[in-house]
């Protein structure tokens, strides 16, 4: 069976190389039968990779431990969902998953019916086929998931118990769909450059792809943060780990791209810049894939060091410099059709938004690779920690959020001061009042005193904008307010989806600012019956129990929780010791309210049942996850196909 998977990959490589060449040659010479054969062979590639991933999935489900990959990442006691998630748990499998996703996307691109841009499809498909060929080479010659052991182990090692979380089923695929999805915009950008069809056509064709990839990547990052928070048991959700950064970088650049395409669509500006952003996003997704696999930077996420590094660096180098060179070669055809007219205009806010997003990306990139750079330059490794990333990005992100509010109520081209004061009066007042209120309530930290009023200001600008739209519809079409609001959103989904995403960002900002400024933690050692107090909570340690199940030993402790003197429930932090794994799993206990999370970690215990806990109170964290849900909603509204 496994041999068939390997052979399918071999055939897929041949077919994708053929397809890449035949597409380009066929489109150049206008030899349509050749283009059709290229198309069919690319479809065959996606069929072949599907066969091979199905075979790997089958091997996982049927416990074919002779395959090294199956033996390394699965075991007999794993439930089906986790068996399938083992597809992306390891290096080789996740590369195969990458290639499979891309081949499916390629098939969708080929089979999609379209009225415009048919001329771009052959070249774009050719770029996709080249990318596929690169991953197939890796899968065949460097890290193949179909490698067989010389013997068949009785059972596999199994998935690391830390990965047994619903996050494992959602987080990697969402991230990978995001990563892989950006190949399509990149492919069409290159196709536009090659064919000199540099108008809005390619932007229209890739808008939904870029949006979907961006949405999946964003959701993947949020699920990752949630997973770290509930499973890794250190009380935080984001650590500026190199691999987290690698996911954030393409997301930031693509956020810049989604904003700047509006400049090209509305005003014919920033054409070359948009190209740069697409190329950069794609390169960063490959860089992220590389970072997780190379062992260049130390990170909790990395797969074990492998020999993939040089291949990825070559591929990134070739695509980045090749496409930037092509862009330079075509720069004469990418002149802007309009000029900036005024400082106070929507164009300005978009420019500044792009500048800040790219500035933040650059700072995060530099901070992430700094150990490597400093070693090359000075021979010593120097790392920069979370304070660096927080200090740089805190102000930048607040400025970005402020811009989102200003942009909402600022018109294109130029705006009169009178108009500005009229529109901004209420939002400014709202922000100011919020600031004064929280100051009176005792808030003194700068970030909170600036951050929360900014959120209030931006939220009011969005609500003001919506209420204007609703009023107009109500007056002109005599619709009632609810219908007017519904129609407002459904008739211009990209725009209102965007506003909803902005609201999601506000909610997350509230959560992030609140939880990073006002978290308290305490480490205590308690005997059964003793209690401890943290903020308004009193925790009473009741008892410790150790019991054995079929595959693990569980140490469980019970604490009853009083909030303001009132019994609100029990928390049960635990530790598992799996028989097949040397590593314990800490199960934190969390009591979540909209106001704050009470978070208890069991650190250790004694024979007389004395136990040590770390207790944290993290304010407003749940707003981050609520924001995540709203983010998904807004993104889906923006992506939803128009009739």
């Amino acid at each position, binding site marked *: 069976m496994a041999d068939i998977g390997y052979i399918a990959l071999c055939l897929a490589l041949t077919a994708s190389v053929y397809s890449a060449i035949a597409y380009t040659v066929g489109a150049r010479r206008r030899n349509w039968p050749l283009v059709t054969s290229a198309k069919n062979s690319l479809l065959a590639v996606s069929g072949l990779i599907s066969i091979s991933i199905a075979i790997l999935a089958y091997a996982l489900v049927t416990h074919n431990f002779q395959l*090294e990959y199956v033996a*390394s990442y699965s075991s007999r006691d794993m439930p089906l969902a986790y068996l399938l998630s083992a597809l992306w748990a*390891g*290096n080789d499998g996740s590369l195969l998953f990458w290639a499979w996703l891309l081949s499916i996307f390629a098939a969708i691109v080929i089979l999609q019916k379209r009225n415009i841009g048919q001329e771009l499809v052959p070249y774009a498909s050719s770029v996709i086929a080249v990318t596929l060929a690169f991953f197939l080479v890796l899968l065949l010659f460097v890290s193949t998931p179909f490698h067989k052991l010389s*013997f068949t*182990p009785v059972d*596999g*090692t199994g998935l*690391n118990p*830390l990965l047994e979380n619903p996050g494992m089923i959602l987080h990697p695929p969402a991230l990978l769909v995001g990563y892989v999805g950006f190949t399509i915009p990149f492919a069409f950008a290159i196709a536009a450059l090659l064919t000199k069809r540099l108008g809005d056509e390619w932007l229209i064709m890739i808008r939904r792809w870029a949006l979907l990839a961006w949405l999946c990547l964003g959701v993947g990052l949020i699920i990752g943060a949630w997973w770290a928070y509930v499973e*890794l*048991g*250190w009380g935080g959700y984001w650590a500026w780990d190199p691999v987290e950064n690698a996911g954030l970088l393409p997301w930031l650049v693509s956020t810049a791209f989604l904003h700047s395409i509006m400049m090209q669509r509305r005003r014919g500006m920033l054409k070359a810049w948009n190209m740069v952003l697409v190329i950069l996003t794609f390169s960063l997704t490959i860089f992220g894939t590389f970072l997780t696999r190379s062992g260049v930077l*130390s990170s*909790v996420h*990395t*797969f*074990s060091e492998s020999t993939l590094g040089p291949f990825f660096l070559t591929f990134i180098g070739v695509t980045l410099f090749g496409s930037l060179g092509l862009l330079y070669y075509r720069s004469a055809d990418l002149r802007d059709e309009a*000029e*900036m007219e005024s*400082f106070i205009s929507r164009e*300005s806010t978009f*420019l*500044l938004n792009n*500048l800040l997003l790219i*500035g933040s990306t*650059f*700072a995060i990139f*530099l901070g992430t690779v700094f150990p490597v750079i400093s070693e090359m330059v000075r021979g*010593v*490794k*120097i*790392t*920069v*920690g*979370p*304070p*660096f*990333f*927080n*200090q*740089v990005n805190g*102000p*930048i992100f607040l400025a970005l959020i402020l811009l989102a509010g200003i942009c909402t109520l600022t018109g294109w081209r130029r705006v009169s001061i009178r108009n500005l004061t009229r529109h901004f009066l209420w939002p400014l007042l709202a922000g100011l009042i919020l600031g004064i209120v929280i100051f009176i309530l005792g808030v003194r930290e700068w970030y909170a005193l600036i951050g929360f009023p900014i959120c209030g200001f931006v939220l009011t600008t969005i609500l003001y904008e919506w209420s204007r739209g609703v009023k107009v519809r109500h007056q002109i079409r005599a619709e009632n307010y609810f219908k007017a609001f519904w129609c407002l959103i459904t008739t211009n989904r990209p725009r209102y989806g965007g506003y909803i995403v902005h609201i999601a960002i506000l909610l997350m900002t509230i959560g992030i600012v609140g939880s990073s400024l006002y978290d308290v933690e305490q*480490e205590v*050692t308690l005997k059964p019956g003793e209690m401890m107090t943290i903020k308004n909570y009193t925790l009473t340690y009741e008892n410790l129990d150790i019991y054995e199940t079929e595959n693990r030993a569980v140490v469980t402790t019970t604490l009853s929780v009083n909030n303001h003197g009132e019994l609100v429930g029990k928390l049960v932090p635990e530790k598992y010791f799996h028989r097949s*794994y*040397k*590593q*314990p*799993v*800490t199960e934190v206990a969390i009591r979540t309210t909209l106001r704050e999370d009470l978070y208890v970690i069991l*650190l*250790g*215990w*004694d024979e007389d049942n*004395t*136990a*040590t806990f*770390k207790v944290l109170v993290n304010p407003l964290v749940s707003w981050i996850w609520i924001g995540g849900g709203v983010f998904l909603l807004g993104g889906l509204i923006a992506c939803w196909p128009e009739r």
Partner: protein
Amino acid sequence: MRTKKFLIGGLIVCLAIGYLGFLGFQSSATYYYSVSELTEQGSTIYDENVRVKGQVAPGSVEQGTTGNTLKFIVIEGGTSLPVTYQGVVPDTFGMATEIVIEGQLNSTGTFQAHTLMPKCPSKYVPQQ
């Protein structure tokens, strides 16, 4: 003229970001050594915050009674470094062969770590 104004504006924003980066760098730049490199530095780096990479010496791990203090030895390049740590022990620590620790070396030669970053082997090694 107008383009010039925009360029100047952009430049100011870039400088501001650069300045933020510089401040952040000053407050968090940390040297990253291997164990042997660390011992070569001698007394010059006592009490300075550094990151150190090495292997956890097999059998050297001593867990304190309540489970949140930890003593172990990190070895690399023929040198060894005794480490003490207090706090949440990451679950992955037990599996780790290679580890990165952050903290200070004090004058008695003991490394007081405040952060443990274990790296796990994700490769299956057949037993025999």
